[in-house]
């Protein structure tokens, strides 16, 4: 093993992360090359210094301050409790009508499927609900025995799909997510962010409309594009967030940081105007929807991948 090869493996060697054969070769190279040994000692020193002097303790009272902030959160009783409460407020009649409608559609689909020998009826059955997803509480958790089936049905009816909602929390931020339906709708139980629909609010009964999330890609040569989108969102009564649903301050794209993902969140009735403007800027369909933020009730979202052209 030559020195260059060994030099590039010093860090992994230090971590014991090399295959056995390479470990022996790097050891031998360090033994015979004083310059390499000096470099290895410097690395060891840096790592030792970090391990010894890097960790610190949180300030006194930190956890108490966090918990005080948590207690002040509207969702402090937990998403499951929120979810139960939501279904407790939906009239039983409405759920019965919705369930009946699903049954009628299903029955009609089965009948149509039965007419075609090449297309079995089962092929038209709706996809299974996502009730096993921890983000969606089990049906048995529902407070009323007469309402449990509503959870999966709600997702299918609104979203037209039983796909799981975008999972911002589990998504690796720098990995482009797989494409998903551009009209994918987040179920309320998955609203784990600052913009969770407020079931306790005055409009809790009426506020059942969920806007869609569209994924778009915008390739531009203007590094200030984020600033313009920020103002555009504001002019449509909306705001700009990052993929973790946190308010995002615009910054300049650069050659070293040429890609960004932003969510423009606007009221549903302003979405078409914003879409038209985004399209006039050259935004094209297809973007990072799958792992994007979830939506609050009454809002539409445009999840944009911004790419700075060279």
């Amino acid at each position, binding site marked *: 093993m030559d020195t260059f090869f060994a030099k590039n493996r010093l860090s992994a060697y230090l971590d014991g992360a090399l295959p056995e054969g390479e470990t022996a070769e790097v050891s031998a190279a360090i033994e015979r090359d004083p310059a390499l040994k000096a470099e290895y000692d410097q690395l060891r*020193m*840096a790592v030792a210094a970090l391990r010894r*002097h*890097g960790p610190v303790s949180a300030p006194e009272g930190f956890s108490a301050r966090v918990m005080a902030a948590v207690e002040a959160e509207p969702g402090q009783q937990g*998403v499951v409790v929120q979810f139960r409460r939501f279904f407790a407020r939906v009239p039983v009649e409405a759920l019965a009508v919705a369930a009946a409608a699903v049954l009628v559609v299903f029955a009609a689909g089965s009948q149509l499927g039965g007419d075609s020998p090449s297309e079995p009826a089962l092929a038209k059955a709706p996809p299974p609900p996502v009730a096993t997803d921890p983000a969606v509480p089990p049906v048995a958790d529902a407070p009323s025995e007469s309402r449990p089936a509503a959870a999966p049905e709600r997702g299918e009816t609104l979203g037209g799909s039983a796909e799981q909602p975008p999972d911002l929390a589990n998504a690796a931020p720098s990995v482009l997510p797989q494409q998903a339906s551009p009209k994918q709708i987040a179920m309320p139980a998955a*609203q*784990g962010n600052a913009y969770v629909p407020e079931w306790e609010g005055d409009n809790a009964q009426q506020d059942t409309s969920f806007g869609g999330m569209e994924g778009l890609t915008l390739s531009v040569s203007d590094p200030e594009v984020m600033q313009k989108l920020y103002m555009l969102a504001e002019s449509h009564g909306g705001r700009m967030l990052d993929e973790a649903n946190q308010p995002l*301050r615009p910054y300049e794209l650069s050659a070293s940081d040429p890609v960004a993902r932003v969510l423009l969140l606007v009221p549903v009735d302003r979405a078409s105007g914003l879409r038209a403007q985004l399209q006039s800027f050259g935004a094209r369909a297809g973007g990072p929807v799958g792992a994007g933020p*979830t939506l609050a009730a009454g809002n539409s979202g445009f999840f944009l991948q911004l790419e700075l052209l060279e």
Partner: protein
Amino acid sequence: MLLSVLHGPADQDLVRRVQQGDSEAFGQLVLRYQDRIYTVCLRQLGDRALAEEVAQDVFLSAFRAMGNFRGEAKVSTWLFRIAINQCKNQKLYHRRRARGRHEPLEGRPDPDRPAREFAHPGRAPDAGVHKSEAERLVAEALEELEPDYRSIIVLRDVEDMAYDDIADALGIAKGTVKSRLHRARSQLARILSRNLKPEDVL
């Protein structure tokens, strides 16, 4: 069973309880991870007041997003990922603010100033640690690294995370973790060697 007696409930069990509305379980998660998350924020931002604020935001964001957590990543990795992202956003915001393009953010110190809090410890809990000259040198050396290098070296050498978990937290390939970590360590070693000798720390 034995593990749970020794170390308390597993992270996943605590998450499940939080998802069922048990905010006390979330308190246990905060206690379990507060030092590590605060450390990551401090080493990323270089300012203790800002680090505390961001670390609190990390836990709040985690609490809000807990309903989405399906256990595909470790809880620790998930928290570190949120922390790294929040720190990155803070840096970008303050960098921009320093250029005068944004409204002032009241009460927050400017992390871009050259004199870091490490040289002026003000808080009691970790003030003793910062008295060390070696610690000051380490903190200043970290400040000189590029943000991506700083993230990876803090996760690996301060938080002792495995390569796979770092890859997951940063959203990069394991091979990238290895190569970036090597460059980060080499750069840090060069900076530290100006003022620190191996015998000071080894």
